[in-house]
């Protein structure tokens, strides 16, 4: 069944059309990648789904609920977990504390005044960390972790909301190649096992073609191609504007190296 559908999403920034009539659908357990060159409108599209941006036109529907223009916190409560291009975590908290905080929020307990926060949802938080392979680091301050590990913790935080849909903005940005593959494998496994839909943007084509069930190609705010990895790879338009230029890929690699 359709978990998420976007119909005719449009967004302008000043005179620039960042997204034009973007429509797609995503099923439970499916991994859908949005790719495109820099400035193609990936993040804009993404943020319109996640509630960080309000679309100028179009609709976003999550499992039949219209969530267009809802703030992120409400989108979250409807079962959407989110990770960011630059990992967003609570830097003053421990690894465990970050996940506990997410669980406290998920259970609507953020206004409790007397309970000991560090004692709440410990087991559940450890279990989540275990799912992303970070249980051993639970007691460390999150600021001490390698970036790849921070990304894993961020995934655990996103999973704390028991989401039906995961939104992952460049989940592997800034990670070493080996870390990237294992993170994507982890996401993919979780998605399949638990029937969670995953919408993600990605620069790393290897990750995209290895894990995405379907791919959207955005260029200058418009979808120019969509389909399975094989279909997209074979699309002449895509090859022309995107994959065909060997220089583009090299540039993308160089950029990633700079990020790290």
């Amino acid at each position, binding site marked *: 069944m359709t978990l998420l559908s976007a119909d005719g999403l449009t967004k302008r920034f000043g005179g620039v059309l960042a997204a034009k009539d973007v429509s797609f659908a995503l099923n439970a357990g499916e991994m859908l990648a949005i790719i495109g060159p820099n400035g193609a409108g990936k993040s804009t599209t993404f943020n319109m789904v996640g509630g*960080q941006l309000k679309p100028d036109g179009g609709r976003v529907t999550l499992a039949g609920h219209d969530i267009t223009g809802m703030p*992120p916190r*409400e989108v979250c409560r409807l079962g959407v977990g989110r990770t960011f291009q630059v990992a*967003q975590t609570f830097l003053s908290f421990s690894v465990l504390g970050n996940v506990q905080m997410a669980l406290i929020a998920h259970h609507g307990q953020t*206004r409790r005044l007397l*309970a000991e*926060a560090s004692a709440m949802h410990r087991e559940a938080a450890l279990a989540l960390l275990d799912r992303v392979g970070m249980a051993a680091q639970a007691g460390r301050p999150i600021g001490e972790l390698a970036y790849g590990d921070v990304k894993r913790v961020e995934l655990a935080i996103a999973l*704390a*909301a028991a989401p039906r849909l995961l939104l992952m903005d460049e989940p592997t940005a800034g990670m070493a190649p080996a870390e990237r593959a294992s993170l994507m494998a982890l996401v993919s496994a979780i998605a399949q096992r638990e029937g969670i839909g995953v919408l993600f943007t990605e620069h790393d084509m290897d990750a995209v073609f290895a894990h995405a069930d379907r791919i959207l190609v955005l260029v200058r705010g418009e979808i120019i191609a969509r389909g399975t990895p094989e279909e997209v790879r074979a699309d002449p338009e895509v090859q022309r504007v995107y994959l065909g230029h060997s220089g583009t890929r090299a540039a993308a690699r160089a950029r990633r190296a700079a990020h790290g």
Partner: protein
Amino acid sequence: MEWSFLLVQALSGLASASSLFVIASGLTIVFGVTRIVNFAHGSFYMLGAYVAVTLVPWLLEFDRSPWLFFAGVLVSAVVVGLFGVLMEVTLLRRIYRVPELFQLLATFGVVLIVQDLVLLAWGPVDIPGPRAPGLRHGVYILDQRFPAYELFLIFVGPAVLALLWLLMHRTRFGVLIRAATQDREMVGALGVNQAMLFTGTLFLGAALAGLGGALQIPRVSANPQMDLSVITEAFVVTVIGGMGSVPGAFLAALLIGQLQAFGVLVFPKITLVLVFLLMAAVLVVKPWGLLGRPEAAAGRAVLPEGILDPRPLDLAGKLLAAVALLGVLALPLLDAYAVKVGTEVLVLALAAFSLNFLVGNGGIVSFGHAAYFGLGAYGAGLLVTRAGLPMEPALVAAPIVGGASAALFGFFVVRLSGIYLAMLTLAFAQIAYAVVFQWVEVTGGDNGLVGVWPSAWAASREAYHYLTAAVTVAAIVFLRRVIHAPFGATLRAARDSAQRADAIGVDVRMHRWLGFTLAGAAAGLAGGLYAFSKGSIDPTLLGIPLSVDFLSMILLGGIQSVLGSIAGAAAFHAVKDFFMPLTDHWRLFLGLSIIAMVLIFPRGLAGAWASLRGRAA
């Protein structure tokens, strides 16, 4: 009203605007580059006036020429610029790496020191400056006489704006200032000598303040209260214009000049608060001022300045807390005055703790926390004096009044962030102050109200001390509990990353609002206790100086520590109480103590304690 009068009144407004802009431009440039909220800017203004009233008459002895007058004014500005360099080199340079709020505290120390140094150097008597030769007369504009010197001042503002524009766009130094204002880290990355840039900026900023002061000498006598009278207004101008924006400051100064010139015609009694009403209104509509930009989100992940993961007290901490508590309980064995001071420290500790609940735990920097302290005191005091209720219900009402007013103001405050949020809290505090000050029939105006004494059973110093100890310790223990509880953790989480907090389903604004309200209620309770310990209430309880005192206390204590603000309150009050009976120049020593503590304990007393214990705070 006649047109000629309206025209002249508008010209008066332009002259004030011009003067205000010259001062505010320096403040906004310094903030843009160094991100330091420079309280000492008003002191530079005052120094400019004092240097000029010393130098200019001496020059005019040679020849009463306008050129010598203006040469004297410019030299005064340069001299003050050198004072700015002195402050940068000897003080600020050492603390660029410490939390930004600490720099603010250090500049506040400079304010206190300069106040007393000016008294020592020039004496307490106001010193009138000479009028500008050639501009002594009045000029007829239609049928109204207008001072020639003010006509001249009207052109000074735009001239300074033009010169600053040239500096910013035509010189390397100016380009660097603009670059640093937009992205401080980038300038560092480009290999620019930051120390030179900052020194130059402080020179420019202080010289502009000095110029502003020196230009005033034909209009006002140099006096030791000049610094504080100008600093709040200069802040208002920079905030309305957008911190770091020179054209914004110009626009804001124009607005404020006209607002005051015509405001006195319509509301002759509320000139005090008019500018703050404007600031509050601007910030509510434009959260970054007229021409300001959103503060660039830090590209790198930085550890927040504030309370980190709070842990249970270790053994040494427990021992320390126990000793402190025993000390509080044993004070009556010492002497009567120690009891009195101890009671005050307890009250201030609660107020400071509630402020650090916001600042350290929530990342919500309030410059106006005394408002809730004072409103709590008024809530309690009015119930006793006007409604004839006894102390007990009044003390219950104090936190309710403090909390309710915090809820009202906080609704707008939590929409902002960073320095603008701080400035909005300041504006609201000033508005509350003005209401209390002006509403004479109810509040007794600035005379305040007397007769706020405890019930008979708590009337003795000792009984009231124990009552205060019981209430403040209970409140502090409760607030500490909240810091450890999910609500406190949520505030910390929202401080660390509002985006992440939002994405896990936290209504960040709502939680901040509730936190602001809770802190206001605690401050209100402290205010109520304070009122009964003094027997009177008056508007100074809501004033900026007290808000700054509270900030000093938490910074001295250490904002990254849960319990440090208690030590900070005790230390601050003890230093003040030690020096006040000793000398008239206690402000000098208080200022020196503050700077010494900033330099020696850059993470506050709690940070020093943690280092002593060999662990991170």
